[in-house]
């Protein structure tokens, strides 16, 4: 467009098409990302702010906004024993679902990270639970854990259970175990595939090298594999935290959701925070949108803090195993020192015997480590201040 010729020229007329195309270049990028931002503004950001307004008012489903009540809804919620109970339940279920899930996912990923036959089939079979509707899983698990299900009668026969009713519905802890098992069922395979992908990205030379160094498979898993997949572990734990704490489907349908069901048990043994929020707002016997909104805010803060804690925890746990290089560096120095001593020793002996001094080819190689070598190495080690 810009001409550098000396002769002045009449400015070129910018045609419509060209002007349009200029606008096209300038505006299109914004236009293309705008659907997301518009939708997020309306259904993501605005509700978050609006939540504050609802939480500060008396609010009902039909009547809508009532009186301004300040922080009353928050103090009301914090004084409800049921809120604290549901918070406890949520964390307990999270742990019962999360920890076995992580361990099993790592195990399954390690199993899948081999030269398997019918690889795709096994991977698919691991992912199948991910597409099974959670409420359907909850109904089926509810049947299995029920009084006449697969577990309880057998456990009674073995004398491990004396209850008449299924303790998986009566006992608080056992109900958490049962619901946790649904979470494990649904997410283990999904996370295993994520971890598998990370494991396959670990440079294979590391395994070759550590084999030569004499590491067992166990040792390799903990010293090579785990530290290498650390970012993915953090990712998995974080998504697990944010998703797992908001558990609803499984707890709602665990007891079938029939008459009187779906409320987290007769004694709220397995009521979680989101179920509590749901019941406050939409339960048959309550209509407290203001208080429910307050629960939402409090819980958002809890999730945020807990995610941060989990993030730091995961990071420190997986980085503690990456600290091992410091130990092996010390060991490497010791080995070098020992080798130097041994080489000098064998050269001296070779010279004495009149054999050509090619390191490692001495005729006395069977007794290659004279008694004093070890001591010399020890002395070396202690001089360098290496403590093991």
């Amino acid at each position, binding site marked *: 467009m810009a001409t550098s010729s000396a002769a002045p020229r009449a400015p070129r007329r910018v045609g419509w098409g060209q002007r349009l195309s200029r606008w096209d270049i*300038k505006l*299109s*990028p914004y236009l*293309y*990302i705008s659907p*997301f931002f518009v*939708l997020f503004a309306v*259904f*993501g950001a*605005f*509700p*978050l702010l*609006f*939540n504050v307004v*609802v939480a500060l008012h008396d609010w009902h489903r039909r009547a809508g906004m009532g009186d301004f009540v300040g922080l009353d809804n928050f103090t009301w919620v914090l004084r409800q024993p049921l809120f604290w109970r549901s918070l406890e339940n949520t964390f307990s279920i999270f742990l019962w679902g999360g920890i076995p899930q992580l361990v099993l996912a790592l195990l399954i990923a390690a199993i899948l990270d*081999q*030269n398997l036959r019918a690889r795709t089939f*096994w991977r*698919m*079979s691991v992912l*199948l*639970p991910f*597409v099974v*509707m*959670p*409420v359907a899983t909850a*109904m*089926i698990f509810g*049947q299995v854990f029920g009084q006449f299900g*697969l*577990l309880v*009668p057998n456990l009674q026969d073995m004398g491990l259970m004396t209850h008449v009713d299924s303790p998986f519905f009566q006992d608080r802890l056992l109900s958490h175990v049962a619901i946790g098992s649904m979470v494990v*069922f649904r997410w283990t395979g999904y996370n295993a595939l*994520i971890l598998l*992908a*990370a494991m396959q990205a670990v440079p294979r030379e590391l*395994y*070759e090298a550590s*084999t030569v*160094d*004499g590491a067992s498979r166990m040792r390799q898993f903990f010293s090579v594999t785990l530290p290498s997949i650390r970012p993915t572990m953090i*990712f998995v734990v974080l998504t697990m935290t*944010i998703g797992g704490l*908001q558990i*609803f489907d499984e707890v709602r349908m665990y007891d079938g*959701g*029939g008459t009187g069901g*779906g409320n987290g048990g007769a004694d709220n043994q397995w009521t979680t925070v989101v179920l509590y*929020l*749901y019941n406050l707002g*939409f339960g048959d016997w309550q209509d407290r949108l203001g208080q429910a*909104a307050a629960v939402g805010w409090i819980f*958002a803060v809890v999730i945020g803090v807990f995610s941060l804690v989990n993030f730091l925890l995961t990071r420190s746990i997986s980085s503690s195993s990456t600290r091992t290089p410091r130990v092996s560096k010390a060991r490497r120095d010791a080995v070098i020192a*020992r*080798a130097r001593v*041994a080489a000098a020793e064998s050269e001296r002996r070779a010279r004495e015997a009149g054999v050509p001094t090619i390191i*490692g080819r001495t005729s006395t190689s069977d*007794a290659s*480590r004279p008694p004093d*070598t070890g001591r010399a190495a020890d002395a070396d080690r202690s001089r360098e201040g290496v403590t093991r």
Partner: protein
Amino acid sequence: MSTGFIENTAGAGAARYAQKRAATGRPIRSHNPSTRRPGWVTYALLAVVFAVSVFPLYASAMYGSSSTQEISRAVGTLPRFFPTLTLLENFGEVLSASQFNFWMAFGNSVLVAVAVSASTVFFSTLAGFSFAKLTFRGRQALYLTVIATLAIPAQVGTIPMFVMMNDFGWIDSLLALTVPGLVGAFGVFWMTQYLQEALPFELVEAARVDGASMFRTFWSIAMPAARPAAATLALFTFVGSWNSFFWPAVVMRSQLTMPLVIPQLRGAFTTDTGLVMSGVFLVAAPLLVVFVLAGKQLVSGVMAGAVKG
């Protein structure tokens, strides 16, 4: 070379390796996982995992094939191990139940899931194209905003969303399920990541030089390049929409989707566990078909997301 010398110079592990190698005359099998041919223990463990994976659906089909008497007699075990025609009869009863309209719920679910997936794929690819291949002020900051919104716990906004839906008059309307899900942060993130690698700048430039408009470039160049990732995104969005229970339970009343049929089963069939379980199977089965057809793609989708995510 003596193992003793190796032990002195390279360590005990290397000595052991050399010893083994000397004994067998060839390099010992390394523990490199990618070349290891696993033994039967591995396959036995995988078979257990497989059994656990299929168990719930299998169990629901077995309960669904049995009468109430058979189920109450089978204490501590499944009532049977092969399906019977009773299952089909039960399906018929679930499909023609008067308490809920199964086909209506099925249609609603299909409608919502298809609309949400199609729209998510289109708008995510559009935004991903913009973030990955176009230059504009504030691009980095806006993209970071998209990623940051991924961490917002969605259910926190339930109450205000319900109030909004009430004001819109969308309670008990499929719009309440569709419109908020038309495009999401995950989709934008996913497509941006993919297009950054899969779509060369040269192609975009060539199209521009040839006089294609921005949208034409997107439609004819970016869209075809994005196809594999778009298909995976569509699958995930479909599965997520199909299985979602919490939000529909909040906003729907008489209009049902598939997951909302499940709470109706106990009400409709009370203690007839066989009928209830056949209903559960029927509700979960459509995605099973999807999984058989496209499970391979889901697997590679999960694994691709991990490396980038």
